């Protein structure tokens, strides 16, 4: 039996909107610790890893592990039926055929219930060990989103080069090229605006902007983004949920033919 209540429906709405373009179908695994999702996009380049901790719920109860195979597209339509401020409750049986979504208006006595049929979805769990990264960049998530959006117009690939205290995002296309260079910067008043570059080894990686564009859809989830890079390794883009938990994207880099 799963019963999880969000204080605000907007959180789940944002999460689903952030990943539904990358992954169409995914299993929501509910444990006593919270709700987790691990899914790989169809082209198997981008891995989405979501953890909504127990703390993110105002009420949470999950006696046994439950897997909810959800069609995100349909789910997001349901979520749109509720107001952002509404209480949102997820209800599911132990071996559910569907999941109930209940919206409760905080002011009015208005309750709306939606039931979503669950899917039987194959999925493999990848063992993502805690990896050591050569460099870690923390920057405001809107800043990163802007860089991706801007450079996406030039090319399909984004090259990220991290040197001592600067990170260079560059893109080179047939019609031109562009680059954005960021340096470490700390804003004491608004720490979320700070740019922090932590470098152990220089990194030079290329990613598909198509996938980055999917990643930045999670920008509204967190004010800052943490990018962890290592040579010839998928990069980790992490949005930390204020309420507890995270949304991580693992993006496989592009390689030169010789590699």
């Amino acid at each position: 039996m799963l019963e999880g209540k969000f204080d605000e429906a907007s959180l789940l709405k944002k999460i689903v909107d952030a990943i539904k373009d990358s992954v169409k179908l995914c299993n929501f695994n509910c444990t006593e610790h919270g709700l987790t999702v691990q899914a790989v996009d169809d082209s198997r380049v981008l891995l989405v890893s979501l953890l909504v901790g127990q703390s993110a719920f105002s009420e949470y109860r999950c006696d046994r592990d439950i897997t909810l195979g959800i069609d995100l597209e349909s789910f997001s339509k349901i979520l749109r039926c509720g107001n952002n401020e509404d209480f949102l409750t997820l209800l599911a049986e132990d071996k559910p055929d569907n999941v109930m979504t209940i919206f409760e208006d905080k002011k009015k006595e208005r309750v709306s219930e939606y039931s979503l049929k669950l899917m039987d979805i194959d999925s493999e769990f990848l063992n993502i060990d805690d990896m050591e990264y050569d460099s870690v960049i923390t920057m405001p998530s809107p800043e990163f989103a802007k860089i991706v959006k801007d450079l996406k117009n030039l090319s399909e690939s984004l090259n990220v080069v991290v040197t001592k205290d600067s990170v260079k995002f560059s893109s080179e296309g047939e019609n031109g090229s562009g680059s954005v260079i960021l340096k470490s910067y700390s804003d004491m008043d608004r720490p979320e605006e700070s740019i922090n570059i932590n470098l152990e080894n220089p990194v030079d990686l290329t990613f598909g902007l198509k996938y980055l564009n999917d990643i930045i859809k999670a920008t509204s989830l967190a004010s800052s983004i943490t990018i962890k890079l290592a040579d010839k390794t998928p990069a980790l883009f992490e949005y930390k949920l204020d309420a507890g938990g995270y949304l991580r994207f693992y993006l496989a880099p592009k390689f030169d033919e010789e590699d």
Partner: protein
Amino acid sequence: MGVNSLWDILGPTARTVRLEALTRRKLAVDASIWIYQFLKAVRDSEGNTLHQSHIVGFFRRICKLLYFGILPIFVFDGGAPALKRETIQKRRERREGKRESAIETAHRLLAIHVQRQSKKRTITNDDEVTYLDDLSMTHPQHVAAAPRAKRFIAKDEYHLPDLKKIKVRDTDERLMPEEEFNELAGESFDVVDGININEVDPKSEEFSKLPMPTQYMILSHLRLKSRLRLGYTKEQLQQIFDDSMDFSKFQIQQVQRRNFFTQRLMDVSGMGDDGNATRRIAGEKDRKYTLMRTNDGWALSLGEGSENRPIEIEDQKDGLYDNVELSTQIKDTRTPPKKSTLKVFAKPVKKQTQKQDLKKYASQPVAPQQPMKLEELSDSDDDFEDIPLVDEAPHSEVKVEMEEDPEQQEVEKALVASIYDQYKDEQPQDEGFSQGDLQKAIEESKKDLFKMEDQIKESDMQESTTDLDFTSSVLFGPPVSEASAPASSNTVEVRDLPSKVTESTSILGKKEYNSPVKIPKEFHPVIPQVTTVTIDELPDDKSKETDIKEIEAIIDSEDEKAEKKRKNKMPDWFNDKLDQQAYSYKVADLPSREEIAQEDEEAGLISWNDAKHMLDQQEEVEDDSEEVEITKVTFPKNENEVVDLVEDTDTTKAEADKKSELEREPDNSGAIEATEPKSSIHRSTEEESITENLIPEEASLSNKNKTHKPKQDFLDYEFIEDDDKAINQQLASEYQDHEDLKNQIKISSEIPLNSNTSVTDEQLLQERLQKQKRDAEEVTETMINDVQELLRRFGIPFITAPMEAEAQCAELLKLGLVDGIITDDSDCFLFGGDRIYKNMFNQKQYVECYMNSELQRNLGLDQHKLIELGLLLGSDYTEGIKGIGPVLAMEILAEFGNLVNFKKWFDNAAVGQIDSSTTLKKNLATRVKTGKLFLPPSFPDPIIFDAYTTPEVDSSKDPIKWGIPDLDQIRSFLMYNVGWSQARVDEVMVPLIRDMNKKAREGTQSTINEFFPVGHTQLRKDLKIGKRLKAAANKMNKQ
């Protein structure tokens, strides 16, 4: 392919994978059945196999693989294991009934051979073999006929009784030894008397020193050879000659070569320049036809001493051409040897062949002429020829009679027609300078009785007559001249008579009013021309007189004949014509263009008065002649009026005959026809004389001259063009011959010719064996080579498996050289394959991926169980058990655990110890009882297990390398082999290459799976598996 229905069992376990997810995957591609698929599947709209479908198919698939960044390695079948071959064989037998395989066919062939050998042995041991000649009494035919006479009943008129074979002893000295026979039989066409004709230069001196027969043989062989395509097929020729123009040139060269050889051949055979002057063609009593060489070509002569005045044989064209050129010359005989020979042969044969020739002759100058008329012409010609041969009598009557005698039904018609023709022809001549023409003709006839054509031409040339005469002479010339020639016979006078007759006839035909006085006038001018012709001239007076007399006589005689029907019209015509002539000469203005009551297109051209006049005249003529059709030919020349007048007078020879119609047509058409030009030319030359003598109006003559001159030019052009046409036609016909030859060669090469006329079973079997071999080779050899060459140019590695490609793919996977296998062959599982991608090319975004772990988990199937399934269901290596489907097979495996137990149960059941402890066993037991279930004694055959578990594969661990596609090479390969345009290749290849370059520049997208190992897989709880299957799978999993 693969295990029957195995995909049905495995299907639910498939996982869909996006093609993009396979980027950078090394996949082994089982290409063994691709070619077969393409051959079967790739068809055009009409269901025909597309040429090079395998290349196109491979090209498409390769492009798809490369587009998705897959690193493929193609694996081809090396050979089929014996097990597989056997199984396929058995299956085919079952399917196709008793149809024999190549092997069996070969076996049967062998058997027949063996049988025959044994027979032979018995025969050779037989000492009673007799010589063929010794069989006089028992000659095979007699022998065969005697006993068979009773039995044999012909089924149809082509059915002949069989002949007994003649036995011959090897030692028979009268027969050619086998070695010698082989030597002779094997002698190459290229070798003559030990000389390789290919190395002989016919121009060389050494060649000329060879004996004549050898030279002849070599030349004829060379000539024959120049007709051949050098033994090449159309495709080969296409390869040799990229450009069709080259081939055309080559063909023309060959034509030239052939011409050269022909010339040489004629030299050698004595027909060339340095050959003998005279050759006897044919002969009869008191006469012989000889072919003799003249200055310009070949001529046919008749009789002794005729060498001096050979009949010149010419083509109409040539004749015309000559006339144009040699308008002043009287004689001209330029006949290409070919044509001369043709005619030479034709003449002796007479009617039929002559008709043909004549037809040609007539048709060439006068295109629009109708065949009917032509025939008549030819007939008349024949008659004329006959006439001289038969009678020398001066009277035309005799001639006519004589003519009739020899010929058959048609002859009568022909005779009538010929007579008309003669007269007609003469008429034209007469009209202009009738007598002079006649005389000329006579003289010419003196020279050569048979120079019909030449004479005609000559007469045309010489004749000062008007256009009409010429045209008429061209058309009717031959008959006229011939007629005159025979008539003239030996003596000049005699000749004159006929000529006069002709004249009179012509005159008659022309106009009713006859004035002898005028005739002499005309005659005078003509004479000088005649002299030029080298003809003995008769005294004008005499000739005139005689002519007149003769004419009258002839007329009388003809009248008589006319009564008889043949020449009913003739006499009348003659009279009328004579009158007409006279009248016309007197009047001189008589514009005689008349139209025949029957048909006249020229009416417009002719002045109305003239026409009226003519019509009246003709009407009179018609009245006189009862039967005769009245055809007045007016030659409407567009020239000045004067010209018209003159012409009219000349031309007024309107003939009632169809021939006249013929003439008219050409005349009308004018420019197109050769006759006109001729006439014009002649006119010009003759005009002078005309002006002086005949025509009172000089102005008109001059006008004529002027008007005619342009015609001459036109003539020249016309003839040249004709020549060109002729050449073109010849080439075309040769090309046609060549094509025919090609076809023949093709046919002969395709069908193995056997000297034996009777097609034996053995031959048919041989044929079949050959075909089967060919079919088999088609797929294996060239196609695989094509495809591999394509792969090479794409930079894609490929290997040819020692045996089965699926096994090799599984091996590659086991060796870790590839990440997966692309195949639609379920056998691959039995070989231990894993990560098998099916339906890769179904034009979907998803591929079905099968993994052993899934099979194991969901169906409880491992490799061993899969093989057992194969044994039950049937696979490439085993036929399977009849009556067992996929579900039952799974249940059996689940029930018994393995096939050994199943066999034990079956054996017990067969003996009666039926263990039916479960419903399945009960069910099976009933099947056993009813005989529906039977396990062969060897079941389960361990050999099959071995074949799957330890297949013959290449276990080399050499790393595989991928290259880069070579765009240019791929282009040329596809353009050459498939016939695509470069644009069509680029359409696909350029974007593909560009994409690949971009990947190379920006890097290839890697996938998550390359970095993160799969921890555990969350599987679907429910696979869409049938209940029974699922139960069986669960049961197996528990075991």
